[in-house]
């Protein structure tokens, strides 16, 4: 039963990257509240290429030493040093964005989970039950955003819970609570969408021609995101897929093809017993 059938608002995140200052308070608050362990290995949380830099636990990617979302990173702040459009703005056009699980309306991770460990909460968020997950890993390649991952050494899949332990008691998630600029806002999705539309119009008027909302549209390939974003450049610049689609949208057709193939196999084996020499 969805939140609307229960007469409850669907809750989510609006992350307005235009006011992100890259302080990483969200990353820290998330780790602290959710007791997310540090990543194993000398390179910290991501793939280091330069050995000297890796030894210092730095990634050599601007101020980003986290890399990407994963089993042990549920908020990730991206830093992009783009070329300034206008020389009067200085050399660098800073893009900073705090990424998080999208809590898709049509969530592939939840669809493909064979144990029912992944479930949809009464707030319409998507959460893994760690006491049920058997670490099959199916959710990992299913996620079109590359969010969920299996934690090495633990064996189970982990991702943002949208602070389910807090939100079910009516509290604000840790990252939104810690955000000093209200770049991360938690609330009823309807209200967040209105707020985002207004903000986009303001930015467009101010000349931010590439400003766009990402994951806001309920008609997109995942039915809209419960955690959506205002970006100042194309999604792929931030490491986001430009047009994600829930893989299970094609599942009925895939089952059809597989059934046909199975029937073909049965018929071919039967055919091999007809005619021809023994």
């Amino acid at each position, binding site marked *: 039963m969805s939140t609307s059938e229960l007469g409850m608002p669907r809750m989510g995140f609006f992350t307005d990257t235009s006011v992100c200052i890259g302080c990483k308070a969200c990353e820290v608050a998330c780790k602290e509240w959710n007791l997310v362990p540090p990543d194993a290995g000398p390179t910290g949380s991501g793939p280091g290429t330069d050995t000297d830099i890796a030894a210092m636990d730095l990634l*050599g990617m*601007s101020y*980003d030493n986290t890399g990407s979302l*994963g089993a042990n990173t549920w908020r990730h702040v991206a830093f992009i*040093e*783009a070329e300034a459009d206008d020389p009067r703005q200085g050399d660098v056009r800073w893009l900073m964005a705090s990424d998080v699980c999208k809590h898709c309306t049509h969530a592939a991770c939840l669809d*493909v*989970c*064979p*144990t029912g460990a992944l479930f949809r909460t009464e707030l319409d968020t998507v959460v893994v039950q760690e006491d*049920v*997950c*058997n*670490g*099959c*890993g*199916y959710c*990992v*390649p*299913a996620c*079109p*955003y*590359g*969010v*969920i*991952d299996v934690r090495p050494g633990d*064996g*189970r*899949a982990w991702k943002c819970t949208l602070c389910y332990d807090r939100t079910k008691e009516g509290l604000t998630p840790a990252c939104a609570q810690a955000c000093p600029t209200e770049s991360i806002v938690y609330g009823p999705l309807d209200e967040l969408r209105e707020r985002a539309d207004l903000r986009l119009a303001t930015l467009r008027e101010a000349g931010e*021609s590439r400003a*766009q*909302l990402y994951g*806001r*549209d309920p008609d997109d390939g995942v039915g809209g995101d419960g955690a959506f974003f205002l970006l100042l450049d194309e999604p*792929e*610049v931030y*490491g986001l897929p*430009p*047009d*994600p689609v829930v*893989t*299970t949208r*094609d599942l009925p057709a*895939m089952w059809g*093809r*597989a*059934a*046909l*193939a*199975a029937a*073909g*196999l*049965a018929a*071919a*084996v039967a*055919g*091999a*017993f007809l005619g*021809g020499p*023994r």
Partner: protein
Amino acid sequence: MVPPAQFGSYYGLPILKRPTWKSPDVPIYLWAGGAAGTSAVLAALADLTGRPTLRRGGRWVAACGAMIGSVALIHDLGRPARFLNMLRVVKPTSPLSVGSWILTPFGALAAAAAASELTGIAPRLGRVAGWGAAALGPALASYTSVLVADTAIPAWHEARNELPALFVGSAAAAGGGAGLVLATVADNGPAARIAAVGAVTELAAGQAMERHLAGLPGGLERVYQTGRAGRWNRAGQVLTTAGGVGALFLQRSRAGSVLAGLALLAGSLATRFAVLHAGRASADDPQHVIAPQRERLAQRTTHHAPGHVQTVD
């Protein structure tokens, strides 16, 4: 020093997560399930048509394949002790849930048929169990194509139309190959024929898949042609071709049949390794995600009025 910002991707990092499915666990699982599924059908029909050595071999391969597949599947889990959690729900939206519900009864039935074969006890029940396994066999061989295709990995999902034929072709080649290894020349005719048909299907579906992927932007087909996947793929093509030809022309010779059958089994396994490694390489390449999705967006923009999230150039 900070490298210059790369446009079009975030420092060239992958967008998707690499599948955590292990090698060789998952290729073995796909291969054993395919060989077992085909063998169960071969065994039941061999029983019906009076080919005792093909029946015996088929029952053996069905039971052993299901057991090897189950062990590989459980070993692949991050928490193997929780395997039975697979059976706490039935979820048609999860190919792995559907597969668990196919593999579990198939394994029990195939084991019963093989036990009856081995001991000579309750041959009628063994026959009924064999028919039960045969009914589930084709589904066991084909569902794994959906398991792989029902992901966000471009080299798998975009190949969703070709993977079922590739996987049942591979399953038929492996099952037929096992029959060639285990049945006498007097009984191995059907095994040779299904092996050859499977080999042709496997090779043709592989070619069709690469052609289809080559038609998409982003160079998706290259993950099946280069690197580890490419090497497995070429090995699979050589072995499957040799085995298929051998199945047709050497089936009258016991040694020739065994050689052809082993080549087909190895070729089928190599194809499964190629598919896993191609998926890993595809997940690692952000252009596999960006290029086809950009093209999709461009087509939509030219066909429809700009919507809410359309980009402004």
